[in-house]
């Protein structure tokens, strides 16, 4: 993986490799893998042998970047980092440390501690942001986490969410970390509520709130992120969707929503996406036709098809709300924004 990290920095010199290292160990901790797997990931990420030793009971292991356990007797290096009392980890680097060695060793030590039942997540001061954004954490603990991160009580902030491969034109200063989500590891950054729009692709900016409500900001930022459609729509502000964004954030992925299911049929038409997009923005059939760049009669024909499939008129009363909500949920369900690589600056594809 050291080679992969090298390729990533060659493709995007501004890519945050340390965040990828953190995300990698996050997944290993969630997956509850053993010490050998943790050492082998550290060795693979650093490109040199990784080792571990514990005093009671006496046990040691060294693993190569290829994942092989080295059979030789282990001598704990004098400069081995301590994971906790009687437990040490190290990287066997010849020469000067590489730029990511410290973060690899820090994450390895933490993961080994957790695997051995000695670590608690709250010992890990980098994870304050994870606590702050987790609604299941008691509110007092979240306030403490905010204070440690330097976020003043009573001030309003927003969370910006982006995948690890996002391209940032301007990286905001502010507490940041990688946070595990159902959509994979997400890069989260906290900015003041009046921060100018973040220029990154793709990225979603959540609604503003006090520190006690930043978990909501993060969840709405995730919705905004998943509504991005780069390159046309590289970033989305949750505020643009007002109260709808909270409903979208609270809708379970497997919610039974027949209006959304039937949109699959509309979307099989090549005009389906652009037409629905115009319909939910427009106040009339004529305006929808203008937004979609088609003749009024073409739009009317498509609307007849849509009304027929949906079983209601998308321009009539509650039909407007139904089609709007269904369209947004459909887009979230089919979002590919977290799959695609960022365009590489200075090296246009093609």
């Amino acid at each position, binding site marked *: *993986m050291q*080679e*992969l*990290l090298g*390729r*990533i920095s060659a*493709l*995007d010199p501004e*890519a945050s490799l340390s965040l*990828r*290292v953190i*995300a*990698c*160990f*996050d*997944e*290993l901790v*969630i*997956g*509850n*893998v053993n010490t*050998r*797997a943790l050492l*082998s*990931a550290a*060795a*693979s*990420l650093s490109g040199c042998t990784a080792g571990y030793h514990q005093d009671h009971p006496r046990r040691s292991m060294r*693993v190569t*970047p*290829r*994942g*092989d356990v080295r059979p030789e007797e282990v001598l704990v290096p004098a400069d081995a980092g301590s994971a906790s009392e009687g437990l040490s980890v190290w990287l066997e680097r010849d020469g000067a440390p590489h730029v990511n060695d410290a973060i690899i060793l820090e994450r390895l030590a933490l993961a080994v501690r957790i695997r051995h039942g000695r670590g608690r997540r709250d010992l890990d001061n980098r994870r304050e942001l994870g606590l702050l954004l987790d609604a299941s954490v008691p509110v007092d603990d979240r306030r403490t986490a905010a204070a440690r991160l330097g976020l003043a009580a009573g001030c309003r902030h927003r969370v910006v969410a982006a*995948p*690890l*491969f996002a391209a940032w034109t301007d990286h905001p200063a502010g507490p940041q970390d990688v946070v595990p989500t159902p959509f*994979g*590891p997400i890069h989260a950054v906290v900015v003041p509520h009046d921060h100018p729009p973040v220029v990154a692709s793709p990225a979603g900016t959540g609604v503003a709130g006090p520190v006690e409500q930043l978990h909501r900001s993060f969840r709405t930022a995730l919705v905004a992120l998943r509504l991005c459609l780069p390159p046309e729509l590289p970033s989305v502000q949750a505020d643009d969707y007002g109260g709808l964004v909270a409903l979208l954030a609270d809708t379970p*992925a*497997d919610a039974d929503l027949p209006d959304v*299911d039937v949109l699959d049929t509309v979307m099989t038409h090549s005009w389906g996406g652009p037409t629905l997009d115009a319909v939910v923005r427009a106040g009339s059939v004529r305006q929808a036709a203008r937004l979609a760049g088609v003749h009024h009669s073409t739009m009317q024909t498509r609307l007849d098809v849509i009304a027929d499939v949906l079983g209601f008129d998308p321009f009539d009363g509650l039909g407007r709300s139904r089609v709007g909500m269904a369209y947004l949920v459909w887009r979230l*369900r089919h979002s*590919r924004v977290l*799959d*695609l*690589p*960022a365009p*590489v600056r200075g*090296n246009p*594809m*093609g």
Partner: protein
Amino acid sequence: MTTARPDFDPELKAGLAVVGGVFPPTITPDLIAFMRRSYASPPIEDTLRGRPIARHEETIAGHGGDPITVSVLRPTAASGPRPGVLFVHSGGLMFGDRFSGADLVLDWVDRLGAVLVAVEYRLAPEFPDPYPREDVYAACEWAATHAERLGIRRDRFLVAGASSGGGLAAGLALAARDRGGPRLCGQVLDYPMLDDRGTTPSTGQFDGVGVWDRVSNETGWTALLGAARGGPDVSPYAAPARATDLGRLPPAFIDVGAAEIFRDEAIAYADGIWAAGGDAELHVWSGGFHAFDIFAPHTVLARGMIGTRDAWVEKVLAD
């Protein structure tokens, strides 16, 4: 609503967190240029550094007599004829080069003493079918014809390929059988790309997740076959899943992940060989996404896959 599918192995998931953005799950035609840069192999000198392996390059006649390059890698200590391997690289038929994934087969050179011939077959869409497979066939014939000079034993020569290279290797074995071409003592098909039709359940299960999804596969096959993809006129040498006769083939070693689109076509191919009375060994690795041994070779799952494959090759190839 959400598709049920086997989960990825936790170590591999951690690897995906690192891979993200280098190898996207969904590769559309507009990403081919990006993939050619991101999937290019590291300098071969770096890969070979410290290994007792000598390399030389040759230009041979590929399909239609056009020049193509092959690299010959041999153990520096070797004397006399050695077992040979034709290596066919991965890269979805559209990217990669003859050294992509080569570090995994170099052990066969310095540990088993084999001579490796790596072929720079031409890539789709610039060179559609039959260029890639006929370049591979030409390299195979060239190696057999020049076996003495190359120090390769004709009676112990196998083909090995991964992903698109696995499909081309399987196609080569079929073509060599049908055309009375060079005799192969084995075919190593790593998670092979065999079927242009994209209709198996595993293809539907891994849409937009992991490495190499349904859409990427369509992109690759369309690059190779154009409008013929999925239709009635696709050659079994291009898409070996189309072969109706899987008899009289060299022994096959097939491995694949349980969590990838090629799972079902790999299983079906092994099953077809057995049904025809042939010799096939099949390994399906639970929790494995496509090409996990290339992306995360340090994981327990990849160590298992690589070790199992190497043991089979040793059985077939070693003195």
